């Protein structure tokens, strides 16, 4: 039976280097290009026919845009709409990485923690920069929950600091772990189906198909959670402690 972690291995195609940096291509890099091409192509084709009665592709694109817009308005309010291009790109990229990775033989980019950690650190850094730009030094007040008595401050500040620093970690690990775990389960089940006699092999094979269906839902939910948490963190940075909070 094959090693179930085999699908996550990366093998560079040939050697390429730039000023001593190793920039050789591997499946993950190619797959990211494919995802970018697919998403861009899909949306460009969907956007060219601006009909009043939409075509199928156009209504799919409109549904997506409306969905992301609703997510932003719900968590950040109207002034969050300036982040719409960034959040839509993030959501669509992660969603298509997850979905295309489910096609047998294609690589799942989001099963590499380097990729998810890069996203998470960028998103968190962005929320800190937005907070500092908007509130200046007062942004550090995010470490003090409202209504804390003075004598509790030495206890609350480390706790809040840890809970802030846990944000990028949980963001990165959640996406990576869900993708890796799902694909490992699929690999194990399918390996069983291949190695068992036909009399019993149908059982793990049926489960492979069922779990593949579940993975489609997971792919969607993980992209959704990543994006909505990005919205929440950016919203927190913009409205300290829910002053002029909109929803919730």
């Amino acid at each position, binding site marked *: 039976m094959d090693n179930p972690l085999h699908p996550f291995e990366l093998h560079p195609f040939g050697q390429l280097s730039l000023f001593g940096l190793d920039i050789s291509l591997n499946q993950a890099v190619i797959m990211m290009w494919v995802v970018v091409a697919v998403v861009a192509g899909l949306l460009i084709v969907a956007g060219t026919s601006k009909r009043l009665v939409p075509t199928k592709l156009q209504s799919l694109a409109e*549904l*997506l845009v409306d*969905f992301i817009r*609703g*997510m932003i308005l719900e968590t950040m309010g109207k002034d969050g709409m300036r982040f719409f291009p960034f959040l839509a790109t993030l959501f669509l990229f992660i969603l298509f990485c997850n979905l295309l990775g489910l096609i047998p033989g294609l690589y799942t980019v989001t099963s590499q923690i380097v990729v998810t950690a890069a996203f998470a650190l960028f998103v968190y850094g962005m929320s800190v920069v937005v907070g500092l730009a908007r509130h200046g030094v007062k942004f550090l007040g995010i470490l003090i929950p409202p209504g804390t008595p003075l004598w509790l401050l030495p206890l609350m500040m*480390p*706790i*809040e600091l*840890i*809970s802030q*620093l*846990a*944000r990028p*970690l*949980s963001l990165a*690990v*959640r996406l990576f*772990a*869900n993708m890796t775990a799902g694909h490992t389960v699929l690999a194990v089940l399918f390996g069983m189906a291949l190695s068992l006699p036909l009399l019993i092999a149908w059982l793990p094979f049926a489960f492979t198909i069922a779990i593949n269906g579940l993975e489609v*839902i997971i792919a*969607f*939910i*993980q992209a*959704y*959670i990543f994006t*909505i*948490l990005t919205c*929440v963190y950016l919203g927190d940075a913009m409205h300290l402690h829910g002053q002029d909070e909109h929803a*919730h």
Partner: protein
Amino acid sequence: MPPSTDPFYAGLGQAVRIGTELLAALIVGGGLGWLADTYLFASAPWGLVTGLALGAVSGVLNAYRAAQRWK
């Protein structure tokens, strides 16, 4: 789009979230404590112990906040 409309998917999303929330804060707390032990003060094992305790507290706090948002 299922997650925004169907309460089942919205709930599933929240449930998946809270578990990692607990764990991540614990790891960060313990990690910071361990760093303080090793590089700042020669206080081993107290930095790690305090860090883990604070991390556990802040993990519960994070999970509580995540659940609050869901109401």
